[in-house]
Structure formats: C-alpha cells, structure tokens
C-alpha cells in the first residue's frame, strides 16, 4: 500500500481540491447532538469529531425515496429512469461505514446488479477518516474496526496532520495530481500512528469476539429479556433507518390522476413495520412486535459470507438513535454472559 502524509496546514486546501473530483459531502452539525453528511460549500464547517451521522452513507447510494420507472399505462409500457450520476466525494467515513458499503455491494451488486445503485457506487469517491470510539461503538467485536479496501484515501490522525493510506487507483490519482499537498511519511509519523491505534483499541467498552453471537442469539430467543425489550420497543424503525447496512425497501406504483401515466417509486422500509412481513393473501411472517423486534437482531447478526463478518458493523447507531433507549450492544452482551473472552 502507498502511504503519504498531509500536514494540518494543508488540510483546508486538500478539502477544497477534493471539490475538483466531484460534489463534496462531509459531516456537519445539524442540531445540538446530531450530524449529517451534507453538501459542503465552506470546508471550515466540516466536523472532524462526528462519529455518526443521522443518515448513514447508504443515503448516497440508495436514496430514501427514488423513482425507478416511468410507466405508460395506456400503452402498457415502462421506461427505467436511469440518470447519469455525476462523481461525488464522501469525506470522513469511518471504518465501519466503509465495511457497511461493501456489505451493501454484496446485496445490490450480486448476480442481479441494481443499476441505480451500481451507477452511484461508481460515481462515489470515498475518503476515510480515523476515529476514537464512544460507548456505543463495538466494531472491534464485529472485526470491522479497520478497513483495507473500499476507499480511495484513508486518513489517520497524527498530532500534526494525517497519515494517508492510498486505497485505489482513484486515490493514487488524487495524490499524484496534487503533489504540493502531500509529504513523505517519517519515522515519528509511524510511531504516532501506532500510538493512535493503541489508544483507540483501549477505548472500546468490551473485548472479545462476536463471531458466535448469532448462535447464542438463536439459542436464547425464548429468554425473557426479549419479551421485556420488545415490550419497550416503539416499532418506530429508527434503528433500521439509521443502520448503515439495513437495505430493505418498499416499491409502490403511483398513478397520475388522469390514469395515463404512473411512476414506480422505492423508499426505505423497515422490518420493524407490520407490512414488511405481510404477503399476498394477508399472511404475515412476523405478526407480533416481538417477532419484528427479534428479526432485526437475527438479521444483523447473520453472516455476510463474502466478508466473513456479520451484517452488523458495530457502529452503535441503532442504540444511539433509539428513542426508547433500547441498547442493542448491551442486550447482546447480556445473552452472551458466561463467555469471558
């Protein structure tokens, strides 16, 4: 891998130059507590401390609402509404978010690639950023705390700048085209990088492995903890909508009032909603709130075979954004009690 360094003094210019490669989106504060990734005009507004955005990076690839088809009802015909996607730059993605995108790739780019997603993915330039975990983070348990692929550049904080890992041909291009911004990595930078990594590892709340959590979950599904937790749940779907790897959508045809045209739309759905499990004939696969509640735990802790990790990347969003204060991590730790490593 290629490594370069950027000094803090050059960061502002670096962010400005990123705009040459596409519209720049980065985390900004949107309220007292929350952040979201927005289009950046003034690079001084970018937040470097943001750990989680209220809308995960998936919004750039599977937007919350989108139009898929234009339908001509009279002629029983339709046209896919596929637009050219201009390149765009996503700044400040943490390791978990980058793994999350790779998980979405597995779902949307499998043997039946979703062209809407594929186009946007091709256009997206990913700039990663190191982070220090808070009490909600557990990417160490899910083995998603460090990424080696899935970004153009990854910036690791140093006392006087960033150590940059160059992760793709596009990343090389950015470095090559802006030689005035980057310097060589020195011995003290490597030491600082190691210190940062050590400090970071010490900040996680729990240690060990969640590799077996799926099975423990299956074995404890009848435990009373799940009745109690499901009882608290509002069925609001905040957990899945803010989850970087939740990918469920619903599709609907909306006819025009004149009956001649219609559009097919898709929008974010959630398994916490009743109709998610509803099928033709009125049968519901998940008729109770508890069924729906557990479905998310099972789904997120299932294995994503291409990466050998779970679908959950340990970002903590689902807990942080749960209005009912239901703690995903603590619930998993609770059922895992007895395993000390």
């Amino acid at each position, binding site marked *: 891998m290629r490594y370069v360094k950027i000094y803090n003094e050059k960061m502002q210019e670096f962010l400005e130059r990123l705009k040459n490669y596409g519209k720049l989106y980065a985390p900004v504060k949107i309220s*007292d*507590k929350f952040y*979201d990734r927005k289009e950046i005009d003034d690079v001084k507004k970018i937040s470097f401390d943001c750990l989680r955005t209220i809308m995960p990076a998936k919004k750039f690839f599977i937007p919350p609402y989108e139009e898929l088809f234009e339908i001509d009802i009279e002629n029983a015909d339709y046209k896919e509404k596929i637009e050219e996607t201009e390149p765009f730059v996503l700044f400040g993605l943490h390791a978990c978010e980058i793994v999350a995108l790779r998980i979405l790739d597995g779902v949307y780019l499998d043997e039946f690639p979703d062209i809407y997603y594929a186009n946007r993915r091709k256009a997206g330039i990913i700039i990663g950023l190191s982070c220090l975990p808070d009490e909600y983070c557990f990417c160490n348990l899910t083995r998603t705390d460090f990424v080696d692929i899935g970004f153009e550049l990854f910036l690791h904080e140093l006392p006087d700048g960033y150590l940059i890992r160059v992760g793709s041909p596009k990343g090389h291009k950015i470095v090559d085209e802006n030689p005035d911004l980057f310097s060589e990595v020195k011995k003290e930078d490597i030491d600082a990088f190691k210190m940062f990594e050590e400090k970071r590892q010490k900040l996680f709340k729990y240690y060990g492995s969640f590799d077996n959590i799926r099975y423990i979950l299956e074995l404890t599904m009848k435990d009373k903890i799940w009745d109690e937790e499901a009882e608290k749940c509002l069925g609001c*779907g905040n957990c899945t909508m*803010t989850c970087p790897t939740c990918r469920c959508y619903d599709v609907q045809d909306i*006819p025009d*009032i004149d*009956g001649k045209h219609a559009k097919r739309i898709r929008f974010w759905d959630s398994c916490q909603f009743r109709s998610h499990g509803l099928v033709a004939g009125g049968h519901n696969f998940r008729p109770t709130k508890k069924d729906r509640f557990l479905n998310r735990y099972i789904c997120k802790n299932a294995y994503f075979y291409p990466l050998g990790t779970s679908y959950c990347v340990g970002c903590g969003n689902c807990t942080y*954004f749960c*209005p009912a204060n239901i703690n995903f991590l603590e619930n998993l730790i609770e059922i895992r009690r007895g395993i000390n490593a």
Partner: protein
Amino acid sequence: MKKLKIGVHGLTSCYGCQLKMASLKLAENIEIVYWNMLSSKGEIGKVDVAFVEGSVSTGEDEEELKKIRENADILVAMGTCATHGGVQGVIFGEDYKKCFKEIYGDNNIEFDGRIGEPIKKYVKVDYNLPGCPPEEDEILYYLATFALGSYPEEKDYPVCAECRRNGYPCILIEKNKPCLGPLTVAGCKARCLKYGIECTGCRGPLPHNIAWFDSLARTFKERGMSKEFIKSKMEIFGKQYENMEELINKVFE
C-alpha cells in the same frame, strides 16, 4: 375510460378535508355526483366511491352516513374526524349533556347531539384516508387508484419513518419533546419535525393495533413526564383508540 363516480360528504367537521380536496385539479375521468360543499345541486345517489369527512356527532349524521353507505360501492373515511373521531372526540367517555350545558348553557338548540365518534362505529369503512387534513398527494393517489379500478395501499407505519427518511433531528431523543411520531400514521412527510415541532398525532394512531401507547408512555415517563401530561397529549387525537387509557395506565401501575 369509464368515469369514476364519486360523492364527497361532510358530517360534523371543519370541512378542511373537503376544502383540501376541492383545491386539487381533478381530471375528466372523475365525475362528481354529489358534493354539497361545492354545489347544492344533486342528491346522495349511487357512486363508486364516497368520501366521508367528519365524525358522527348527531342523529342526522348517523342517518346521512347510513344513506351514503347504502349508495356507495366503496366508502372512504377521510380525515381524522372520520377515522378516529377527531379533536371533538376528545370528550369521549364524558357525559354529553354536561358538556353541552357548559358550552351552550340553557339556550334552546335543537338537534340530537352526541359525542363525536369515528364513522367505523356505524358503518363498514373500506379505506381510511388519514390526515388533518389529508395530504394532496394521498388524496390524488387514492382517487387515481380507484379510477383505475385498483385500490390504494394504506400506510401502516409511523411518522418516524418519514422523519428518518428526511434526516430530521429526533427531538424526542435530543430535547425530550413529547413527540407522538412513533404511534401516528405516516404520510405528512413528518411536516412538524421539519420545523422542529413535535408531532401531536394529527393523522391519528396507527391502524392494526400497532399504536404502542404503552411503550411511548413509558419512554415519556422515563424522560420525566407525568401521567396527566402524557394522557393530555395522547388523547387529543387518540382518545378513541380502542384501549388507549388502559395502555397508558399500565405503565404507571
């Protein structure tokens, strides 16, 4: 194409839903058979779809509603008064005569009044078109699907979904605001949250017994709100939800 014959009716209500509907441009494939607010011509007669606004608050309302039902293939409850009794339904459970006296005193007003109730208590409702008033896109969607001989898919998910899809800050988490988004049926695109104002539940509680008054009351309680306060918020539009009181009480036992 065959024209869709519709009737639009107002029971006890503010006529806001009808006004919203009247402001929309309908196409020529829709024929208005009866719409008293727009024209005094016409009578309640056979229609494909009847849209009924308002709650049943008088004997006349009940009679009219039954007549509408007999003449309509499809009956749609339009707006929160029709679907849940509306704001006027908040006195549900109280003595009507007492309430009447407080408002009208001893004046002699002649009608057979009663406490406003959702129309499903009196007739079979085929579809609910929620909102206070309903949203333009939803009114058009319902009409358009009926005109095609199809039917609308009713939302059964909460306002929170739209709040999240729009990326608004959650003010229940952030500011401990008593937001009723989690138990209110979506469709308004989380309009109030866009302005940082908590949802007061104007579109009415979710259908299919999934309005979790108990879980939300518990969340509110944990955030320091009193039972009386929680109840006063939840009953504005939710008073006639089957077991609202019971669900809230459970949390305070």
